[in-house]
């Protein structure tokens, strides 16, 4: 007898997604996903049509980063899957929960170089947390369930489900209640109390402790506890690029990000510190710069959910593996029972001194970009969201945009993917429709995914794109000026198409502004627009983002 649970694999995908609470999929259909799309027609899930699969995966990623929920994207086999890959890899590097569903050629064609066949699982394996290929319709409910579970638990990350066309079209009795068999998969590790006590001892011995929050602190919502620890120790709170917003950057102990484009005072303080307490930070090369110098004459405590992060990049690290909130709570207990109040310590005076002198300081003379970014901050509410592209604009935003809440500063930190910001902004807007979403874009980056303007207009997803238009691949030009002896090669974009017209051609709004006053007016107007608005802001091509620590140098060797 056939029950209600007798259905095609394609329908089972949709049902399983609905069971996970999915309300939206970003994607582009193709031959190998036609059955899935046919089933979507009868389901409750909204499909948002991208114009390039890379943007579809960035949208899903932006949705995930803004909401904390799993973002879903989809593409057909072959070129669809390869286009989608960049966004999936971007999500992987920043531990963002994304489920990617790709169509595959029918099973009899797999391995035969059939039309639009690639080994999708093989290609994706190194950039996903897990990859699956259900080979019978019956496996679909469990595969989807596993994908969501794996993607959203432990150290989050993207999961691929590659589904052959005949598995979508075949029908069978489906079991949606079956659990998942994931015996080897540990989602949480209990922090070891002995280790936490050891860490607490280090804290008590330290004269100059500093807290470093990373992207993991946002995922675990560990900001409040990090602040409590900081206030107990009267220690400065720095962040990584990914950690921006974990702790409100206007807190009196916050010093902003460290790293290649960290603030002057944060880089100085972490260099002078004798103990770094990392919370969900992976001590990447862009954060620590020269790792040996970074940890010289200091100890590092690393709280992380992922045991493979322990001592990965630093030798003097005492790693505490586990949910960072749990580790922090335990640590606070130890510290509070033993800690003398440290408000007037020399370290705290040093913090105040550096902060008073350097907070918000623009190095290297006049620059337009920081002024624009500060004006954006003034106009936006705390919960509004900023995304960035990659390049100088991203670095300016890292330095001058104060993120006040978690999940309000969205950027491609690990992979540094140009073209990420705009589609990610659209995904973020879908997730948090009540918030304004602004993409801070370079003219080079924007041109990588500007065709998402079509999606934004057709699907009614209004965001604001601010183009810092310097007619160059600015960050490349900066390196060529500062590191390659002024030998300028292939970094001059020249006159781009008029972005205001480009926006209008898509049915969006576009304005070109003169100067910062004009910008303020245009931005206020854009906040009231009901369509996406592109604001084209001319920026002098020779602006350098400072401070800047070139690769291979240490944080004490900032160029200012």
């Amino acid at each position, binding site marked *: 007898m056939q029950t209600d649970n007798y259905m095609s694999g394609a329908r089972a995908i949709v049902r399983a997604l609905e069971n996970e609470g999915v309300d939206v999929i970003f994607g582009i259909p193709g031959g190998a996903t036609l059955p899935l799309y046919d089933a979507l027609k009868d389901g409750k899930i909204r499909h948002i049509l991208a114009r390039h699969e890379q943007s579809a995966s960035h949208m899903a990623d932006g949705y995930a980063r803004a909401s904390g929920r799993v973002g879903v994207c989809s593409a057909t086999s072959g070129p669809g899957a390869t286009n989608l890959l960049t966004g999936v890899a971007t999500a992987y590097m920043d531990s963002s929960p994304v489920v990617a569903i790709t169509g595959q050629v029918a099973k009899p064609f797999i391995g035969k170089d059939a039309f639009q066949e690639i080994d999708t699982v093989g290609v994706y*394996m190194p950039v996903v947390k897990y990859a699956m290929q259900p080979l019978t319709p019956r496996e679909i409910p469990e595969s989807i369930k596993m994908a969501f579970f794996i993607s959203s638990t432990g150290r989050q990350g993207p999961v691929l489900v590659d589904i052959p066309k005949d598995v979508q079209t075949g029908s069978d009795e489906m079991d949606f209640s079956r659990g998942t068999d994931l015996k*080897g*998969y540990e989602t949480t590790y209990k922090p070891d109390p002995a280790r936490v006590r050891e860490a607490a001892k280090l804290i008590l011995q330290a004269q100059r402790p500093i807290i470093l929050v990373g992207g993991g602190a946002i995922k675990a919502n560990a900001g409040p506890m990090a602040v409590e620890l900081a206030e107990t120790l009267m220690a400065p709170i720095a962040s990584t690029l990914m950690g921006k917003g974990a702790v409100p950057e206007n807190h009196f102990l916050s010093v902003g990000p460290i790293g290649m484009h960290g603030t002057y005072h944060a880089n100085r303080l972490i260099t002078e510190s004798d103990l770094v307490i990392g919370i969900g930070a992976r001590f990447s090369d862009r954060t620590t710069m020269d790792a040996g110098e970074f940890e010289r004459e200091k100890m590092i405590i690393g709280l992380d959910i992922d045991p493979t992060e322990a001592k990965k990049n630093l030798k003097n690290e005492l790693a505490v593996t586990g949910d960072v909130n749990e580790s922090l709570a335990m640590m606070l207990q130890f510290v509070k029972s033993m800690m003398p109040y440290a408000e007037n310590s020399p370290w705290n005076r040093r913090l105040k001194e550096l902060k008073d002198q350097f907070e918000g300081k623009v190095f290297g003379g006049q620059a337009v970009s920081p002024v624009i970014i500060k004006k954006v901050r003034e106009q936006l509410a705390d919960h509004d969201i900023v995304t960035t592209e990659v390049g100088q604009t991203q670095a300016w935003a890292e330095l001058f945009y104060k993120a006040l809440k978690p999940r309000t500063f969205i950027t491609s930190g690990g992979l540094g993917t140009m073209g990420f910001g705009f589609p990610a902004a659209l995904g973020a807007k879908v997730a948090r429709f009540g918030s304004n979403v602004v993409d801070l874009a370079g003219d080079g980056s924007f041109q990588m995914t500007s065709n998402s303007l079509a999606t934004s207009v057709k699907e009614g997803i209004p965001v604001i794109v601010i183009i810092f238009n310097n007619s160059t691949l600015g960050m490349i030009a900066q390196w060529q000026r500062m590191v390659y002896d002024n030998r300028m090669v292939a970094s001059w974009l020249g006159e781009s198409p008029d972005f205001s017209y480009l926006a209008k051609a898509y049915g969006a709004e576009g304005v070109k502004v003169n100067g910062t006053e004009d910008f303020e007016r245009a931005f206020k107007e854009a906040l009231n627009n009901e369509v996406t608005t592109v604001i084209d802001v001319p920026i002098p091509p020779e602006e350098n983002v400072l401070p800047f620590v070139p690769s291979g140098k240490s944080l004490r060797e900032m160029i200012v």
Partner: protein
Amino acid sequence: MSNKRMFFIRVADRPGVLFRITSVFRRRNFNIESVAVGKANIPGESKIVISIDVDEEGADAFARLVKRIIDVYEVIEAPQESCTLRELTLVRMESNEAGLENVCKNYGAKLTVNGGVYIEYCGEPQNSDMLLKELGKYKIKDISRTGVTALVKESGKDILRFGH
């Protein structure tokens, strides 16, 4: 001192597991010396035994990275001195030359003459190496080695265990 270490990896019997594991080593440009895969004593599980030249710190990092793979249940990592090692070697000779029989007898290898001349040897990999050197004095047609498989010794030292 040799830096050769053994990884014992208990995994779910799913497609792609071996690929995922070897990718961890390939990504950091480490050459795996040998891999042996076989069913374990628990249904649905396989055991992968890998031999690799790596220092203790590197081995620790690899063990963690391998454990992070979702299909991996447990990773045990040990220096070769802490393991009992065995490898099977099969050799086909041109002909049953005089002296071959003696070499085999010395090593405890089995010589079969049946539609061809075959030598079969099971022992520690160094002994296989020595035997093959001896056999090199005769005319060898073909060699196949299984790669080393192993068990941790009860008395073994410096054994790291991840997972359950």
